[in-house]
C-alpha cells in the first residue's frame, strides 16, 4: 500500500494505492488537519495517519507534496516538488506522455509542459490569487450562488478586469447593479480565470490540455478552454487528487520491490 499526501492550501488530500493500483481518496480541511492531527517533532510535522485512515491501512511508503511541505516537513515521508507530483498524477490518470497540464488549486495556478512523459517547462501564477479556487469561492459568495451553479455558465460573459481577486468583487457588484443576469455575471467570472491563465497556456501549448485541481470541476471553464484555445481538454475523474496520486506513483517507483 502506497500513500500520497498533498498538503494543499485549502485541503489536505490523501490517496492510497494498493498493489493492483486501486485508489482510495481522503480529504481534510488544511487548518483542521494541522491543528487536530499534527504535532511538531524535531521541527517536522508528525501526523498519526492511522488515526485518520481506515483501520486496516498500513502504508509502506509515504510521499508528500504541496505548499505545506515548504513550511513543514511531514515526518517519515519523502517529499517531492508539487509540479512533479501533479505531472506524475496526470500521466497516471490519462496514460498520456505529451500534453500541457493545467492545475488550478485553492490559491495557486500552474501550467506544465510534458513531452515524452517528462516535465520540460513550467510556469506558475504571480503572487496573486486571481485565477484560483479562492477567487471563484469569493465570486460565488458575492453572487449568492453555489460553486456548482457558478460553473455552469460561459455564454454572454460580462467584461470583468482580470487583475485582482479582491477588487474583482467590487467590480462584480457594479455589474450586478447594472442589471446583468446571473448567467452573464457567472460567465464573466469564469472568463476572468481564462484571461488570467491564457498567456501561460499559449507559451506552453499542446493540443491536449489535462486540467486538474479543484477548479477543474468547473465545467464552464473546461468549455471556455476548449473553445478559445482549440484544444482537447481532459479532466481526470478526481482532479483534485492528482498531486496525491502522483505521490503514490513516486512511492511505488522508489519502493524497493
Amino acid at each position: 500500500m502506497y500513500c500520497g499526501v498533498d498538503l494543499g492550501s485549502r485541503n489536505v488530500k490523501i490517496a492510497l494505492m494498493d498493489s493492483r493500483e486501486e485508489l482510495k481518496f481522503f480529504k481534510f480541511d488544511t487548518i483542521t488537519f494541522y491543528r487536530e492531527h499534527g504535532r511538531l517533532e524535531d521541527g517536522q510535522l508528525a501526523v498519526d495517519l492511522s488515526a485518520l485512515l481506515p483501520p486496516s491501512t498500513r502504508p509502506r511508503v509515504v510521499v508528500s507534496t504541496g505548499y505545506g511541505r515548504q513550511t513543514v516537513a511531514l515526518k517519515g515521508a519523502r517529499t517531492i516538488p508539487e509540479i512533479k507530483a501533479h505531472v506524475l498524477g496526470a500521466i497516471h490518470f490519462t496514460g498520456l506522455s505529451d500534453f500541457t497540464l493545467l492545475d488550478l488549486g485553492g490559491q495557486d495556478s500552474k501550467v506544465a509542459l510534458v513531452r515524452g512523459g517528462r516535465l520540460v517547462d513550467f510556469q506558475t501564477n504571480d503572487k496573486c490569487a486571481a485565477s484560483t479556487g479562492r477567487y471563484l469561492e469569493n465570486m460565488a459568495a458575492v453572487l449568492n450562488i453555489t460553486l456548482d451553479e457558478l460553473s455552469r455558465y460561459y455564454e454572454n460573459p460580462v467584461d470583468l478586469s482580470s487583475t485582482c481577486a479582491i477588487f474583482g468583487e467590487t467590480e462584480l457588484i457594479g455589474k450586478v447593479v447594472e442589471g446583468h443576469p446571473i448567467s452573464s455575471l457567472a460567465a464573466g467570472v469564469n472568463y476572468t480565470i481564462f484571461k488570467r491563465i491564457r498567456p501561460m497556456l499559449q507559451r506552453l501549448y499542446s493540443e491536449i490540455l489535462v486540467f486538474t485541481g479543484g477548479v477543474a470541476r468547473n465545467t464552464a471553464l473546461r468549455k471556455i478552454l476548449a473553445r478559445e484555445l482549440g484544444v482537447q481538454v481532459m479532466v481526470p475523474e478526481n482532479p483534485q487528487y492528482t498531486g496525491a496520486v502522483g505521490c503514490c506513483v513516486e512511492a511505488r517507483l522508489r519502493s524497493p520491490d
Partner: protein
Amino acid sequence: MKSRRVGITTTVPVEVIYAAGCIPVDLNNIFITGPNPGELVEEAELAGYPRNVCAWIKGIYSTVLRQGDIRTLVAVTQGDCSNTHALMETLELAGVEVIPFAYPFDRDRDLLTLQIEKLMDRFGVDWAAVNRARERLDRIRRKVWEIDRLTWQENLVGGWDNHLYQVNCSDFKGDPDAFEREVDEFLHRLKEAGPRREEIRLAYIGVPPIMDDLYDYLEERGARVVYNETQRQFTLPFATEDLVERYRLYSYPYGIFYRLEDITREVKKRNVQGVIHYAQSFCFRQIEDLIVRQKLNLPILTLEGDKPNRLDARTRMRLDSFIEMLR
C-alpha cells in the same frame, strides 16, 4: 564642496572617484547588507514612495538619508532605470548634490568618453590620475576574475561567494586595500578546498537577488550557480587597459541584446544546464524576460523578488521543480 564619501546608484567609473581621493559607496550594497533592509524600504514608503516601485530604489533613498555623511551622489541616468530620476530628485530635495552619469544607449564611444570626462571635471582629476587608479583597481579585479574562474572551471567556489566578491567590485567596499586582503585570504583558503559536488550547473542572470538565501538553498538541493551575469560584469572582465573601452564593453547598462551576447557565450563556456532569470518586481526588465526566453536555448526559470527577505514558499517550490526538471 563634495563630501569624501560619494554614493553611487550602480557601477560607474569608480576610478574617477578614487583618483579624486574620495570614497565610492555602492548604496545597493550598504542597503542590502544593513541590519534591517526591510525597515529602510518601509521608511521610503512612509516618506511617500509608492508601494509598487522597486525596493532597491526605496532602500537607496533611505540609506542616503540615514548615512548623513553621503552628501554627493553619482546617479546613473541612462543605462539603469527611470526610477533613478525620481530618486535623484527626491534626494536633491533633501539637499544631496547629485551628479548624473549616462551610459549611451548605443554604446557610442565618443558619447561615453564625453560622459567620463565630464565626471572627471566634476571631480577635478586628469587622465593620468584616473589611469593610476585603474591600475590599482585592476590588480584586485584580476584576483576576483580568478575567483570566478575557480568557480566554473575548478568547481572550488560556491554561488554565494562568487556573487559576493564580484558584486563588491562596484565600489571595492570603499577600501581597496582591505578588500584586496579579503580576496587574498579567500583565495588562500581555497587552496585547501576540495572540488564541490553539486551535479547541476546553473546560470544566474539579471540584477543581483534581493533575497540572501538563494545560493545556499540551491546548493542544499544539489544545484550550484557557476555564472552570475551582472555581478561578473561589475568586475569589468575585459583584457583592455583602455578605460573608455572597458565601460563600453561592460554589458549591464546597454540593453538586452548586447547582454545576451555575453550570456550566450558564458553559459556555453561554463557548461550550464539551466538559467535563473531574476527580475525585480515592478522593473522594466521583467518585460525583457520574453526576449531572454526567445533567445536563450536553455531551460529558464524566471524569479521575481520584491522586498528584501528570505525565499518565500512559492519561490522555493518553483526552484525545487526547476532543479527536479533539470535532473
